[in-house]
């Protein structure tokens, strides 16, 4: 890109509004040129794979069209159990994450204490910790002979409950991974609510509960939707924690899919599984994208 091509003379620079003069055409061409590389990457890495996997899921080992992969997905008892397990875990985890993250964000927004300031500084950390490390930390903390079990031994003789390789462990890992992120999105939204608005509501006699439901909740609802989308997406597609601390049966879909692909070389079934996941998430994704598009205008 040479500086010359970009540099309009003083006269052509003035009319900012008009789009289709020579400057407008230059802008269009330049804009497209700047965006095309990342768009092509997107096409190759997202759109093409999804199309390929739909194709793959409908092709049998003999190369003919078949619906067997989907039939297997919804009739095989183990697979059915996996699907129900994943959906259950996703709903329970997402709701818990959003409720706790919202409470945390509200606390951070309205608390003035020193300890709240510390939480504000520290809650970024889990977002940046590699998921393998966090999972390893959870293993060493909550394992049968883990730190918590050792500490509890000083207070009670009761045997330590089983957390790892169990539903509880996955729920715990999902909370650990997703609360900080959701709290970040929500507290960014809450900090956008001016104190003046809340003060004036107080002045005309609104109670705490009224302020929350009439002002704070509606104003942060959109961010709640965004957070919900990302949390659902993150939980349903999670792999590392279930791979390392999940039960062997039933499995989370992410792990089941990886096994089908890398261990049994059942590309068709793995693809059908992926397509099924896309179908669920495109529903969630649709609302997110629509919501964002409204926001833009």
């Amino acid at each position, binding site marked *: 890109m040479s500086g010359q091509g970009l540099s309009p003379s003083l006269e052509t620079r003035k009319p900012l509004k008009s789009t289709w003069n020579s400057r407008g055409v230059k*802008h269009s061409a330049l804009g497209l040129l700047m965006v095309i590389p990342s768009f092509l990457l997107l096409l190759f890495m997202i759109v093409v794979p999804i199309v390929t996997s739909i194709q793959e899921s409908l092709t049998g080992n003999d190369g003919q069209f078949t619906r067997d992969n989907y039939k297997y997905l919804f009739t095989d008892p183990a697979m059915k159990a996996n699907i129900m397990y994943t959906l259950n875990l996703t709903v329970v985890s997402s709701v818990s994450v959003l409720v706790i993250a919202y409470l945390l964000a509200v606390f951070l927004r309205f608390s003035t204490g020193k300890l709240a300031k510390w939480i504000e500084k520290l809650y970024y950390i889990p977002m940046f910790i590699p998921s393998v490390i966090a999972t390893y930390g959870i293993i060493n903390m909550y394992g049968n002979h883990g730190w918590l079990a050792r500490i509890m031994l000083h207070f009670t003789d009761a045997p330590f409950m089983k957390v790892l390789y169990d539903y509880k462990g996955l729920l715990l890992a999902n909370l650990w991974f997703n609360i900080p992120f959701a709290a970040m999105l929500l507290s960014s939204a809450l900090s956008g609510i001016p104190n003046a608005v809340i003060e004036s509501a107080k002045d005309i006699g609104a109670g705490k509960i009224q302020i929350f439901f009439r002002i704070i909740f509606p104003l942060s609802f959109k961010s709640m939707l965004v957070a919900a989308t990302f949390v659902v997406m993150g939980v349903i597609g999670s792999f590392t924690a279930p791979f390392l601390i999940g039960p062997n049966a039933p499995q989370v879909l992410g792990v089941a899919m990886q096994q089908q692909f890398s261990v049994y070389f059942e590309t068709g079934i793995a693809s059908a599984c992926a397509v099924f996941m896309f179908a669920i998430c495109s529903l969630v994704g649709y609302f997110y994208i629509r919501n964002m598009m409204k926001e833009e205008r």
Partner: protein
Amino acid sequence: MLSWYFKRLGSRKIIEFIIFALFIFFFLGPLINLALLAFSGKWQFPAALPQSWSLTWWKYVLSQPEILKSIGLSFLIAIVVTALSIIICVPAAYAFARLRFPLSRWFLFSFLLTNAFPKMGLYVAIAVLFFKVGLMNTFMGVVLIHIVNTLMYMTWIPAASFKSVHKAQEEAARDAGAGPLRVFWNVTLPMALPGIIVASIFTFLSSLDEAQGTFMVGMPDYKTMPLIMYGAVQDYPATAGAVFSILLTLPTIILLFVSRRFVSADVMSSGFTMK
């Protein structure tokens, strides 16, 4: 005595303290535990704290050729990924923020696709494609999967920063006789830099930590640090695993500390939402 103390503190303070304690226990407990483990020599079961401290496991971990190789590979991949991402995404971000071009809205929202699908499903789909085009188990394949992970933040966060630079300031510089490139270099870029830095750090760290995608398309030749860790969880003694965990987390902590000025909820949120 104690109850008097609590009364003076007030219930508000007590609630704050309880929340703080729960927060530290739940979110930092597992990490503190790893830090203790890494420097412990002997820590047998019933003891709540290590019985002796030592650095022997550090020596052990740092003498494993497999681990050293993975550290080098991870950093190489992360650097290549970050550099390519900046080259691809920052111009696009600038175009979204400042230029009018046809279909710009469609292009902008197409980036949402990277986040509209669950990761593992997408990786399986990508792996199926990579098999067909021969990108399985290649350096390029791993790099591509890392780039696509952060494509959206890498475009949206800088785009939000470019947008937040006031046009009036650019106009003023132009009126003073600076060319467009000079305006970009001396006015726009420095003001948008915090956003670009945050996005780049995000990309670098996410590449360094990426495990699932690499596990799908990079095995068996491209064993990055997180993949070694998958094995270490099962095969190594807990102390060695803890040491390796710290090695893997160290770049994150250092980079976050250096850039803490720039990292805020608002800047990071702009990678996920439109404002």
